[in-house]
């Protein structure tokens, strides 16, 4: 009897030790993964604050082969703000982001709500149409928009870009629709019985319950213009520097026609200026982001 108890205790000890070993392995793997994922990000950060000089004491702005810089300084930021149009371009992006955030959120939520809670005749065909349109490569229409704007001699403007970002937003209603599907129908029905109109139900009953999805949609719409590169580049053209958004501006800085090898640290400084606010925003809102992303996975 005693032996059995000891054997059992020993076995449990084994298992506990096994589990500890596995846990240590998992920790090591996770730390290695984190290192891999942080490696490029940290490098951009270090490059932005790098102050490395050649034998003549001149600042080196190009890529160097050492990961850890020889000295730190803010010369790159001075260059970024005085020698380029970065501040102006940052303002452009902010303007586009705010406007398209408001417009897109309204469009997405209204479409999603209608698709989820109102049963009307054309609902099914409309959803099928949305799916078919999603199959065309997005920038097939983008290329056409570019030529249409050009042919109509409409100046390439930020306004056009805002419209392009927001106009199609209604088609991305799937995640928000999934959310509205979880709002109980009984709530809508009882409000209807109390004499509320459809508009009142939307504004006064459903929307106040939908804070997570509102924040998620707005977050994606706001960060979109900061992350999008190709649309802005095509619509705004490569030459109009004063109209560029940060993504286009930083790409052009490195690989545009006027690019020189000496701008890498300036580019890195620009990246830091863009990434820090966006990452902060994401981390503050991560609860809502994760909720939305998970729902999106299920809804497709």
């Amino acid at each position, binding site marked *: 009897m005693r032996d059995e108890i000891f054997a059992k205790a020993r076995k449990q000890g084994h298992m506990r030790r096994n589990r500890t070993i596995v*846990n240590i392995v*998992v*920790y090591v793997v*996770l730390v290695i993964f984190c290192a891999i*994922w*942080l490696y490029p*990000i940290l490098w951009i950060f270090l490059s932005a604050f790098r102050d490395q000089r050649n034998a003549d004491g001149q600042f080196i702005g190009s890529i*160097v*082969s*050492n990961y850890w810089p020889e000295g730190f300084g803010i010369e790159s930021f001075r260059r970024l703000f005085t020698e380029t149009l970065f501040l102006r371009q940052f303002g452009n992006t902010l303007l586009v982001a705010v406007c398209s955030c408001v417009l897109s959120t*309204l469009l997405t939520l209204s479409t999603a709500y*209608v698709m989820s809670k109102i049963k*009307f005749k054309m609902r099914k065909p*409309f959803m099928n149409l949305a799916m078919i349109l*999603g*199959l*065309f*490569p997005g*920038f*097939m229409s*983008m*290329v*056409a*928009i*570019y*030529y*249409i704007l050009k*042919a*109509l*001699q409409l100046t390439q403007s930020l306004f056009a870009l805002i419209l*392009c970002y*927001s*106009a*199609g*937003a*209604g088609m991305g209603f799937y995640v928000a629709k999934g959310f509205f599907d979880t709002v109980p129908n009984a709530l809508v029905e009882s409000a209807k019985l109390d004499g509320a*109109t*459809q508009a009142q139900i*939307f504004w006064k009953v459903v929307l106040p319950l939908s804070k997570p999805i509102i924040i998620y949609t707005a977050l994606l719409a706001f*960060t979109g213009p900061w*992350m999008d*590169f*190709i649309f802005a580049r095509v619509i705004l053209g490569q030459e109009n520097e004063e109209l560029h958004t940060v*993504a286009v501006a930083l*790409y052009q800085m*490195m690989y545009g026609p006027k690019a020189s090898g000496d701008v890498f640290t300036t*580019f890195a400084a620009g*990246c830091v200026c863009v*990434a820090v606010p*966006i*990452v902060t*925003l*994401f*981390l503050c809102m*991560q609860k809502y982001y*994760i*909720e939305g992303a998970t729902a999106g*996975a*299920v809804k*497709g």
Partner: protein
Amino acid sequence: MTNLIALTQTGANWLLAVLIIVVVAQLLTVVCLILARYKKLGVVLNAVKNWFVGVGRAIRNFFVKLGKGTARRFREFHERFVDGSVGTKLSHFIMGSGNFYHKQICKGILFLVFQLLFIAFMALSPAINDTPLGGQALVNLVTLGKHDVAGGIDPVTGRPVKIDNSMLMLLFGVVTLGIIAIYIFVWLANIASSYKADLDQRYGGGPTSFKTDLKSMLDTNFHKTMLAPTILGVTVFTILPTLYMILIAFTNYGGDNAVGQVHFNWVGFDNFVEMFTNPNGEIAARFGSVLLWTVIWAFFATFTNYFGGIFLAILINRKGIKGKVIFRTVFIMTIAIPQFISLLAIRNLLATSGPVNGMLMKMGLISEPVNFLGLNPNLPVNENFVKMMIILINMWVGVPYTMLMTSGILMNIPTDLYEAAKVDGAKPLKIFFKITFPYIFFITTPYLISSFIGNVTSFNIIFMLTGGGPTVAGYKAGKTDLLVTWLYKLTIDNNEYSTGAVIGILTFICTSVLTLVTYRRSKSYKEEDTFQ
């Protein structure tokens, strides 16, 4: 071990092959997991047969339904004409007359004004940039203009001849067709509104007032109000341009004399025929390999991210691991950083003069820099090695997202499933393959499909990392170009508009075939309530 470069270059082919085998094996496991639900091979074959029969039936049903629906519409249209009041009959010809008949003055005026505006628009053909809209635009849509060169006097109009701007003619033709479609829609609405007033008169409390109709926009017709902006936006910024681009594929727009070219013609299916008849043409020569690489890329990109993400999520969510929040925050941070920053950072990190090569050289592993992304023209390039690097870097970009997504699902797996398994004495590995993975796979099937399509049309990774290189002499499509980056190069960089449009259509065909094949599967999944 002084020269790693030769090793990596030849090793890349082997690594790629191994990678292919691993992923194919994983895929087979997945297929087996699905098939495991059916016990015998006969059942499986039967299921496959049923699937095809089902698709056939669905297509037939669609057309039968369409035919019946159209017939019904026409019948109803006729009955309404016979049954309606004088006003309704008249409103088939003069819009709004039915509303005037029922003293719905505001509505009647709106309809009438709309009709008059439309007639004026079609007859007067207002011009923008010397190119007419309206009726004239329809004629132009067919001819696409005839003047190649400017000069001389037109004998008909007596005005100096300008070069016809076919691009605008095509665009305005499509716009005019759209306006005609809107007109037909409003015309039908006008008849319906008049007939509704008839019925209200006959059975109810008389025709509704304009105020009531307006109020209904916030109540019974709320969905119309809510959808209107979306429909408008999508029509103008998605449907119209897509239609326009599709039409461009049937013209000879672009090519050698594209710069400054404004006049072009319809060529029918010539651009598509050329694909097969001109083996040295851009499309015929490169389409096969670009398509192959696009499919391989989409496949690997989807599944490496998927399994990598699940793996990472399981590690982070393991019981007894502390600091989950910290680990998760690190990965969310990488999601939040705009792609162009992280991709360009990695591209420069791997540059021949960059820190990775510097470190490898300092450690004595290589004697000359490795051309990771094939961007340095002075060093040897291995195409497969570059492709493998792209897929690995894509994992850096995509795995955190899948991790985040599957984390949420992992936490939602009903715990009683696990407890039951533990009581039955199942080992952790068995629990994973019998419960965790099937559950995640079941829930994320729609995501897998949409992410596969997303990868077929993904642009940033290739454009930022390699720009499609290494280049192929004589052709625009490089060795790592996807269909979409090729489309971009053709249209934006090289003005090959019609060729680009052909590629766009082919891309659409690829994605829609993929979706059609998988759609029924996922739909049946969605309708299944229980998880087995």
